[in-house]
């Protein structure tokens, strides 16, 4: 996974081209979607994806064939986002995880574990409600939902992509989903669902 730490391969130009086209490029739609959901800006997301792919190409000798190319690419994209975009963006400061973890471990979480959101209300959300709800979450919460629910990464893969322990992946996911449900439940109320 690490760009710098992995044992170096020595690929020929033909092998590089094969890896790039057959293992990296097939993930372009997922990568673009991830970049767009992180930056929430079309131009920034194009730049971020392009930077990531060029970086992946430049460091292709650090990629071991047979390992998970998608996770490798996602990690590069996430790091590029943090280094190059997050600094300049006007996002509010990141969530204090100490606080989040203690919230997660408190009794309060049991009481309001799920807003009373109903499946029927979700079925009527045929517009941008879910997308807006996802985009409204703090970027760290948004990220775990994208990785898990949209891209199907396993917890251990997410832990590597995000450089956090698996326990944090789980608690962050749990909290992110509750926040998403709260948001969806607000929309459901606006749509006229009582007690949604």
């Amino acid at each position, binding site marked *: 996974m690490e760009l710098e730490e992995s044992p170096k391969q020595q690929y020929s130009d033909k092998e590089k081209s094969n890896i790039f086209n057959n293992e990296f490029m097939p993930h372009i739609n997922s990568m*673009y979607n991830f970049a767009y959901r992180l930056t929430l800006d079309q131009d920034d997301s194009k730049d971020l994806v392009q930077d990531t792919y060029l970086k992946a190409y430049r460091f292709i000798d650090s990629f071991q064939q047979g390992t998970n190319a998608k996770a490798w690419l996602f990690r590069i994209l996430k790091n590029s986002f943090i280094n190059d975009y997050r600094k300049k963006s006007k996002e509010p400061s990141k969530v204090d995880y100490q606080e989040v973890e203690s919230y997660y471990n408190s009794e309060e979480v049991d009481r309001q574990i799920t807003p009373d959101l*109903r499946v029927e209300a979700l079925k009527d959300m045929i517009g941008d409600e879910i997308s807006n709800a996802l985009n409204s979450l703090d970027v760290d919460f948004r990220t775990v939902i994208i990785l898990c629910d949209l891209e199907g990464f396993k917890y251990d893969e997410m832990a590597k992509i995000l450089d956090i322990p698996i326990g944090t992946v789980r608690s962050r996911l749990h909290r992110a989903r509750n926040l998403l449900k709260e948001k969806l439940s607000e929309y459901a109320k606006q749509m006229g669902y009582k007690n949604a």
Partner: protein
Amino acid sequence: MSNPDQNQMKQECQNQRECMEMLQLIVDGEASPEQKEHFLVHHLEECMPCYKNYHLEVAIRQLLKNKCTGQAPQELIDSIKAKVISNLAP
């Protein structure tokens, strides 16, 4: 999973916290076959809150997948390929 008789089901879950954690493992594909069997086949049949929560979680994930994915613009794909091919050129 069948459609259980809702009147026969428990209206309160005694293990809500553990169940929510188990539910998350199951929808994320991280639960063992035994855990899945116990929760999906036995517990959901008798516990109304968990039955509802499970279907809600599944519906949200479906909605996310249908509404929050997209395609990369072709110009972006072309531009990346062009830059990498020019890098490969001798």
